[in-house]
């Protein structure tokens, strides 16, 4: 029992990432009808927002000769540990330590801007083109984004540690009445799960309970009629693209401490996220979230010793296997709506 619970917990963090990316993909697909292969790159850019912020905050590590003066004639060393200078030694170092959570604030506007630029600059021109063209152009964009990041940050993974207070492990088995040391679990992964849950909740609440969200939902089911009612639905859909980009970006920001970001992490997640979207059902938001968690948990259960001894290598292929079975038995996915991508 405790082994199963542990595997479920293990699956939650990956599942959360899948769910968040798939949620964004589905939002884009449901609103704009575009298959966005660059979504993994958005996830990666989010992670690199955290890296950037960390770099900006730790500029002090660059040691500068105190004898040199800048153009004003003041010693350069003054501005080196500037967070320390502004907030004092203790606050400064804790700001640096909390750079990953702080990056959330930094990433939201950045990702919204990136998403907005992407939609206005590129994807807008592809609404009336076949899906194959959309896939291909966003695939090209993903390569470009990836290479740009590689150019600035290099090819090696960059450590973005979690704050000390949440970087250890806790024994959550005790809380559920299991024996001591039965379920040791890193705190950050729980944080990630809670964070993902909050984001998903926020997106759903936004769509459910605000007028804006209502219009979006109306537009998702019948874009033309909403347009006829005098609502500029395109503008709102562009905003939703920004939201979707931000969701993917935030998933990336918080994923840094679990897996150090590198430039191709987006591609690794992209393929799986697409599988998740298809399993959940193209265009179904709850389906995407459900399938994300389901596949994440299935993957971690398949990596247990008894599963791999039963069927060697099952952990490597389980997600694809499930996807194939689902697609063949329930072509619309688990919660797919009728009429979406039927063709």
């Amino acid at each position, binding site marked *: 029992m405790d082994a199963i619970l542990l595997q479920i917990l293990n699956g939650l963090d990956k599942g959360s990432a899948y769910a968040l990316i798939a949620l964004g993909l589905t939002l884009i697909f449901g609103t704009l009808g575009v298959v966005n292969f660059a979504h993994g790159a958005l996830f990666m850019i989010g992670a690199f927002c955290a890296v950037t912020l960390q770099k900006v905050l730790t500029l002090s590590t660059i040691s500068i000769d105190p004898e040199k003066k800048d153009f004003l004639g003041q010693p350069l060393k003054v501005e080196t540990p500037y967070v320390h200078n502004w907030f004092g030694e203790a606050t400064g170092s804790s700001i640096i330590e909390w750079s990953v959570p702080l990056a959330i604030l930094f990433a939201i506007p950045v990702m919204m801007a990136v998403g907005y630029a992407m939609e206005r600059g590129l994807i807008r021109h592809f609404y009336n083109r076949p899906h194959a063209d959309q896939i291909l152009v966003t695939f*090209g964009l993903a390569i470009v984004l990836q290479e740009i990041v590689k150019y600035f940050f290099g090819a090696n993974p960059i450590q973005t540690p979690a704050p000390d207070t949440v970087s250890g492990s806790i024994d959550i088995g005790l809380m559920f009445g299991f024996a001591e040391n039965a379920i040791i679990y890193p705190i950050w992964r729980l944080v990630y799960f809670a964070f993902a849950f909050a984001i998903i909740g926020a997106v759903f609440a936004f769509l459910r309970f605000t007028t804006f969200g209502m219009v979006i939902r109306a537009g998702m089911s019948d874009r033309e009629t909403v347009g006829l009612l005098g609502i500029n639905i395109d503008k709102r859909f562009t905003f939703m693209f920004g939201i979707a980009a931000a969701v993917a970006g935030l998933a990336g920001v918080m994923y840094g401490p679990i897996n150090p970001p590198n430039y191709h992490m987006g591609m690794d997640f992209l393929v799986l996220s697409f599988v998740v979207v298809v399993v959940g059902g193209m265009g179904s938001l709850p389906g995407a979230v459900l399938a994300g968690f389901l596949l994440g948990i299935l993957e971690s259960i398949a990596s247990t010793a008894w599963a791999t001894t039963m069927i060697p*290598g099952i952990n*490597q292929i389980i997600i*694809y296997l499930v996807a194939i079975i689902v697609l063949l038995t329930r072509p619309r996915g688990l919660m797919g709506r009728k009429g979406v991508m039927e063709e």
Partner: protein
Amino acid sequence: MLRLTKKDISLLVVVIVLTMLAPFLLNPFPSDSGLAQFNAGYPDLMQKFVIFGIFAIGFNILFGLTGYLSFGHAAFLGVGSYAAVWMYKLVSYNVLPAVVLAVIVAGLFSVLIGYVSLRRSGIYFSILTLAFAQMSFALAYSVLSNPSFNLTNGETGLQVYANDPQIFHGDHLPNFPHLFGLSMGSTYKMAAGAWEFQFNVAYYFCAIFMILAFYLSMRLVRSPFGLILRAVKTNQTRLNYTGLNTRPYTLAAFVISGMYAGLAGGLLAATDPLAGAERMQWTASGEVVLMTILGGVGTLIGPILGAGFIKYLENIFSKINDNVLHQWFSFMPDGIEDLMVMIIHPFVGKGWHLTLGLMFMLVVTFLPGGLVEGGQRIKTWWANRKSSDKAGKPASTPAE
């Protein structure tokens, strides 16, 4: 002749002449000049041109004709490579049986995957093929390389070891893939003045296969079967309404293009007896999509052009480093030289993927018909200009 129209025959002849004379044509610069690095006439690269040309021709039969976008075609290439290397390991280094086995195995494999994937169309088909290819990659990379059942040799890649049976391997035969004793690696070098031309056995071996593949695809496109495939792309529903079951046709197209990929994989193993799982990764599948798009989807010559173009850029662009750039711009004043190098630096050398991605986006956006369409546009533009010169008035633009 050959059951082709005149126009097709001339195209075929052009392809034959170009591939046969490639060692000359791709080596336009003397080997000691500064431009020698733009030469593509060395065996390694020329082999890639023709092998990936075959791969792209095959992919075009599926994607160009039926419109089914497979994102997992590299799996067949990888399977072909593995099959060929197994043939080396078990039988001998002779390439002919290896290539034949590669095609057969890839064909069987594609029957399996195609049968399942083709139940769905559109984006679902793309995802299904992608899932299958990733699964094959995972299987080849880790699962099928366990000590008790080592089919793929995992990360190291499958290769021939000294203790392999190789039952037909004689002492007089080279320890490298060969065609009845003629080693694939042997190269005849011809020096002519400042130029050096290299004639490689493996290149010509692969080139003959490419010409055959090209001829076959030509026949296929012009056949009634090809017509049905194009009808599938235009409107599958209507085709179904006429009482035609399209599944066998699409499956046949899928298997044929899978066999082309297997042939390419087998030939890859013929030039270098090593098969690795990374050949099956989905980025490799993306690459062949790219080649086809870049050259021109649905055209005969497009995929070959695209394959050549991308492989050329990959090899030449990635070789350009800062020193070379400084050499080029050395005639400029120092500041401007450094600026030019700084601007170009991110796009060449290690960053050539950036160029590739940008090019890909530009082509898909502005030139959906690829290089072939670009060529046609220039031709029309040229013809219009000429005729307008004659008539003395601007020619009307032809309706799209």
